[in-house]
């Protein structure tokens, strides 16, 4: 009877398209908003995520997230290096400064200073140049979006000169750094150069990046560093979550997006649930006929569930495809919208939500089908 169920479903083209549209719309709404939200939150921790060699970030105990910096003295670096289980530890500077391009615009930038010797902490993806170029005098690496902000309409090129705090800096690489929350250009320089760009002070080191020895548990090592140095030490994952949590707690972003996501879910549930429920109820007489003709309840149950599965999977596929297409298009249209994408977790979560909605709608309508009196078919 599966074929009969599908013919019943597809036979009424208008209702079928209405169902599919409802589910596709709801899927699109839910996945799109959740994906934008997660993309936005990941942007808050982009510099942590880009420094992939670091297992642990060490910072002043009062620091709560990556953009809140309480500088430390360079001597703290040696204390961290002295902790058992540390493979290597390097200084990392993070700060804001203003870049003046002689042939471009003035632009606030995020300046990241990495260890002179190892260059640990530089984003590994470069679209032009090489990470090693940073060892050249006055060298800096800028991100692709930053380059386009500073020199709008110009093709990516090396050798461009900017001034940072009256110091000359030459672009030796263009990176594909993750977009930051603030959309400022991201500039990497050697730690010593970064100190020149911002001006020497007694305390200047923002973080210590630590790599654990092989076999060393990062959480245990972080705890050991904290207890032995009095500094705060977090694994990169914990620091990422701490940063995201800060923005979640201190900004209205989660509330705004939460409302949109909830509305998407409610509207989606209402549209999908109501449409499917009505679809089944409108077919109640047909199900009554089938029951009168000797089709068992369990067969009818299977038919309704099959119809639900078909509309849910078709509508979901279209909706999630539209959502993925949306991000594909927007990332090409505007560089500021890059890295907004559809994570697989969002796709799976939306699938679960859609199927929950459709199962609830199915169960509500199935109950009516199960109790329908087959004698209904004799009534006028």
């Amino acid at each position, binding site marked *: *009877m*599966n*074929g*009969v169920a599908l*013919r*019943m479903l*597809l*036979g*009424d083209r208008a209702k079928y398209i209405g169902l599919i549209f409802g589910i596709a719309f709801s899927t699109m709404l839910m996945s799109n908003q959740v994906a934008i939200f997660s993309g936005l939150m990941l942007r808050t921790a982009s510099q942590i995520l880009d420094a992939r060699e670091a297992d642990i970030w060490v910072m002043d105990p009062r620091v709560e997230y990556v953009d809140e910096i309480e500088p430390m003295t360079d001597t703290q670096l040696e204390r961290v290096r002295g902790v058992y289980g540390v493979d290597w530890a390097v200084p990392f500077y993070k700060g804001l400064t203003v870049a003046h391009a002689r042939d471009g615009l003035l632009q606030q930038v995020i300046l990241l200073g990495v260890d002179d010797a190892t260059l640990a902490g530089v984003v590994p993806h470069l679209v032009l140049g090489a990470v090693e170029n940073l060892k050249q005098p006055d060298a800096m690496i800028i991100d692709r979006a930053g380059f386009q902000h500073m020199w709008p309409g110009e093709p990516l090129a090396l050798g461009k000169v900017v001034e940072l705090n009256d110091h000359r800096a030459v672009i030796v690489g263009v990176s594909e750094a993750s977009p930051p929350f603030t959309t400022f250009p991201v500039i990497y320089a050697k730690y010593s150069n970064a100190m020149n760009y911002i001006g020497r002070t007694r305390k200047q080191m923002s973080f210590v990046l630590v790599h654990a020895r092989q076999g060393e548990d990062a959480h245990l090592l972080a705890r050991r560093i904290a207890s032995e140095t009095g500094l705060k030490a977090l694994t990169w994952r914990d620091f990422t979550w701490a940063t995201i949590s800060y923005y979640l707690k201190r900004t209205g972003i989660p509330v705004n997006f939460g409302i949109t996501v909830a509305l998407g879910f409610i509207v989606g549930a209402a549209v999908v649930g109501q449409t499917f429920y009505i679809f089944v109820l409108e077919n109640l*007489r*047909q199900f*009554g*006929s*089938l*029951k*009168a*003709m*000797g*089709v*068992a*309840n369990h*067969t009818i149950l299977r038919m309704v569930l099959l119809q639900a599965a078909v509309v849910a999977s078709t509508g979901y596929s279209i909706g999630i495809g539209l959502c993925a297409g949306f991000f594909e298009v927007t990332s090409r249209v505007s560089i500021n919208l890059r890295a907004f994408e559809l994570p697989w977790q969002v796709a799976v979560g939306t699938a679960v939500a859609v199927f929950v909605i459709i199962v609830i709608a199915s169960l509500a309508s199935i109950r009516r089908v199960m109790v329908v009196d*087959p*004698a209904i*078919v*004799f*009534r*006028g």
Partner: protein
Amino acid sequence: MRAPSIAVRCSGVTKSFPAGGGLVEVLHGINFEAPAGELTMLVGPSGCGKTTLISIIAGILSPTAGMVETCGIPITQLADAEKVAFRRRAVGFVFQQYNLLPALTAAENAAIPLVADGRATEGGRQESSRNSRTDRHERPPRQAAKPAIRR
């Protein structure tokens, strides 16, 4: 197996429906026999209980009291699942409102009990080999005239 000479036998069939907090008795001790191989017509004014009696004979409704034997099967003694199987195998309906599935062709509508019983494919192909199907069998009900639908 020999077919029973009596197709339908009803003895003392009563049927009551709940209404307004009480019970309304629609059938009052019906005794009725329909011989096999003959055309039997049940005639009466509107609301006299014809549909209720047919529903009971077909195993769709259960009588409040009495015994019904259809095609030699005491259907009042059957469990619900057995009644469903009985309807599928032994009873054919032409509903007053037709109640055909609009998405299926006439032949496919006719084949539903066979499909449900696993005796035909969903396109009603077993039927097609038995009966020479014409073009009108392949049309959906909405494209057929009322007499054709009834047939």
